[in-house]
Structure formats: structure tokens, C-alpha cells
């Protein structure tokens, strides 16, 4: 199994410990990661998608062509990157748009044929690697620890473009992946609510966006005994982590550690926390010390 690894820009710039966790844990599971040399911003929804469609698709084409040249599919952890690249690929199926983008890509001496598929980390772990393989590689299970899941909205909606769950309905794959580590996954009333951290919501309405996340955090506290939140999206990770401090400065009391799946997986595999879970706003010591 080999993929072109698309790190995006938040992960390598702000949360490189997640990147390290991915680079350590995936090869253990038999997944080889190839560099996508010269990849650029996905483009993020707030950039070209919001200003010019042909520029959006040119940038999508640029990125997809890198994996295509290598004969590989693209592996992405960030929900926004995943959704943007899937959306780009889907729009490029339209002949008219594609021929315009072909012209633009020619200026860059690149060629796009639509051969590479964009895959999210959750799906690759669940389908291509499988729960059994993950169980075999767990050295220090999270036995008896309760967790809740943040399912990244960008991997769920719109299902015809980003979805990977043939059962449809509520997502479950990340939950089963966490159970493979020995943890107990608890359910709660706001489980499928989006984190609220992407796009302009928090930027334009910080108080309202924090209140939106508070509803979820309150439900976790009231309805579960969760000791951690597991996500698989850099935006969910950064927002659910930092919003707790924001709420605490307004008199709240929130201290639920947030982990990307590959981080907690790497800890269960025995990799050092200083490398794979080094950066957080909400302290993670209670979980890290279990390893």
C-alpha cells in the first residue's frame, strides 16, 4: 500500500507532531507514504473557492497531478483539504471546466488526467489497513479508557462527493478504529455536530462559535465519562483544543484532552509522546502518562 501524502499547511506549520505521528504509525501498518513534492494549498475554501472558480480548479489540478504522475492516490488527514480536493476533482469531471484548466496547467507545464483518487485517513485505516491489523500493532492498549469521537464534517457531507461509508447515515468508522486501541467509545447527544472551527464562523463571531462548541463539550461532560476526544482532522483538533482555554478564560472549566487518531495510535504503538503528541493547549498529561 502506497499513497501520495498530502500534509496540507496547518499540520506541517502548526501541528507537526501530528505529521510525525502519521509518518511513524502508517509504515508500521504497511502503508508507505510518498512525498508530493511541490504540493500547494488545497486550495482552502476561504481562498480561491471563495473568489475564482478557474483558479480553484487550476490549483486542485496542480496538486492532483503530482500524485497522478507517480501513479498514486492521495492520502489526506485534514478534513478541509480532503473536501476541497474531492470537490475540485468532482468539478473537473465537467468537460468544459477541464479544458480550461488544461490550458492553465499547460502554463505550469503540468497535466491533469483525473487518475488519482483522494482518500481520507479514516477510510484508508478502516478499509485498506483494517481493524485487525491495527489491533496486532497495539503494544499498549487504552484498556478501560472512555473516549468520544469528533467525526469531521468534511468527510461526511455532501455524501455524494466526500462520503466513503456505504451504509450511509451516521459515521462510525473512526469510532471502531478507536475501539481497536482498546478504548471504550461513548455516545452523546451532540456527537455528530460539527466542531464549528472551520471557515469564518470563529473568525467573525468568536463568542458565538465558542458557545456552539460549548454545547458539545457540555454534553460530553454531562453524558459521558470520556477522558479524551479523538478526531481525525487538523481543524477539529486545533479548534476543540484551543476553544476550551477560550471558554475557561470566561469562567468555564473544560479540560478534555484532544488527540488526532494517528497520535493516540502512535502512543499505543509505543512511540514517544515528545514526538507524536507534543503540542496542545488543553493539557494531555492524564492520557500521556498512561503510556
Amino acid at each position, binding site marked *: 500500500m502506497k499513497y501520495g501524502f498530502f*500534509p496540507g*499547511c*496547518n499540520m*506541517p*506549520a*502548526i501541528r*507537526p*507532531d501530528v*505529521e*510525525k505521528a502519521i509518518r511513524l504509525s502508517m509504515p508500521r501498518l504497511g502503508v508507505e507514504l510518498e*512525498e508530493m513534492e*511541490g504540493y*500547494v*494549498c488545497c*486550495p*482552502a*475554501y*476561504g*481562498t*480561491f473557492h*471563495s*473568489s*475564482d*472558480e*478557474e*483558479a480553484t480548479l*487550476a*490549483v486542485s489540478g*496542480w496538486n492532483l497531478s503530482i500524485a497522478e504522475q507517480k501513479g498514486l492516490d492521495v492520502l489526506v488527514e485534514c478534513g478541509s483539504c480532503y*473536501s476541497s480536493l474531492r470537490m475540485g476533482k468532482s468539478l473537473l469531471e465537467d468537460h468544459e471546466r477541464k479544458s480550461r484548466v488544461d*490550458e*492553465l496547467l499547460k*502554463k*505550469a507545464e*503540468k497535466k491533469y488526467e483525473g487518475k488519482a483518487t483522494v482518500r481520507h485517513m479514516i477510510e484508508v485505516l478502516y478499509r485498506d489497513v483494517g481493524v485487525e491489523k491495527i489491533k496486532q500493532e497495539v503494544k499498549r492498549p487504552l484498556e478501560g479508557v472512555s473516549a468520544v469521537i469528533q467525526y469531521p*464534517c*468534511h468527510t*461526511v*457531507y*455532501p*455524501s455524494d462527493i*466526500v462520503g466513503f461509508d456505504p451504509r450511509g447515515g451516521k459515521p462510525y468508522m473512526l469510532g471502531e478504529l478507536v475501539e481497536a486501541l482498546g478504548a471504550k467509545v461513548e455516545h452523546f447527544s451532540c456527537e455528530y455536530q*460539527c466542531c*464549528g*472551527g*472551520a*471557515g*469564518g*464562523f470563529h473568525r*467573525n*463571531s468568536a*463568542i*458565538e*462559535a465558542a*458557545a*456552539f462548541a460549548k454545547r458539545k463539550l457540555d454534553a460530553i461532560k454531562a453524558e459521558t465519562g470520556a477522558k479524551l476526544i479523538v478526531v481525525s482532522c487538523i481543524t477539529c483538533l486545533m479548534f476543540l483544543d484551543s476553544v476550551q482555554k477560550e471558554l475557561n478564560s470566561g469562567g468555564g472549566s473544560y479540560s478534555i484532552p484532544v488527540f488526532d487518531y494517528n497520535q493516540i495510535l502512535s502512543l499505543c504503538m509505543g512511540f514517544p509522546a515528545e*514526538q*507524536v503528541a*507534543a*503540542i496542545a493547549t488543553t493539557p494531555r498529561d492524564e492520557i500521556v502518562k498512561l503510556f
Partner: protein
Amino acid sequence: MINLAELKQDLYKEVTEHNDIRYCFNCSTCISGCPASEANPPLLIRNLVRKVLLGQEDALLDDDSPWACVTCSKCEEMCPMGVKPFELCLAIRRWQCRNDETRIPQSLPELFERGYTQPVEKAQALRASVGLGELSLVVHDPELLKRFQAMLKETKIVKENSYMFKE
């Protein structure tokens, strides 16, 4: 009150490039699951559909609410009429940018200059602290960066606002 004389009937054709929003029947499903409907001012996507269909050009140009969208696409999934509210939200932003250059996101020139919105190339110390080396970035390869910029210079947004984009 809406002044009928000030309405632009074909506005929806200008705004939505590809799909037909006239199927919208005002059910508000798109609002009920929308995180940004809790923003201040709220993003009420159904109202935006009305604005576009009615042709309220000035009001639409001044409307900041599309920029609060978290891009979760829940509305896209739930709309029973295939209106694609999320795509409309992006289409309104694009239309605003076409008609008012101050709407153009500041991240665009950054993306043009270095390929990313985050300064990935400046994170080397942090990356090294967790045992990571440098990525093979477009900013590290002047020839490649030139090709990237040559491509973008052919797009409308960069052509028409070239003063914003520095090589």
C-alpha cells in the same frame, strides 16, 4: 421594504454559475442544521437564496454573512430541492469579489507568493523539535514557484487585480 424598481431580475444568473436555485421552496432546512446560523450576524442561507432570486443586488453586495460559513456542507446534504446552498454560499462570495475588490481574501496574495496560507517554510524549528525535516515545498524551488505563478497569472482574479499579487 423592498423597492421593486431597484431589483435586478437576472441577478441569479450572474451569481450562480452552474446550478438552478429557483427550485428553492423556502423550507429552511438549510438553516436548521447550519452552525453559522448562530453567528453574529447569522448566516441564514435561505434568506440569501431569496435575496439572489429577488435580485436585491445592493443588499447582497453588502452582506457579510456568507463569509461566516464553516464549509461543513450539511445544508448541501439536507436541501430537498438540490439547490446546493453551500455552493451558492461560495458563489455569492465569488460574485462579491468580482464586484468589490475589497472582498478578495487577503490570503490570496500569500498563496500566490509562497503556495500556502500558513508559513510552512518558517516552521523548521518546531518541526525539528518533533524530529521532522523540511518538506519539499514550492517556495524552495524557484523554478517551480515561477510555473505556479505563471499558471495563476492567467486566471481572471489575478489578472484583474494584478497589483495585489507580488512575485
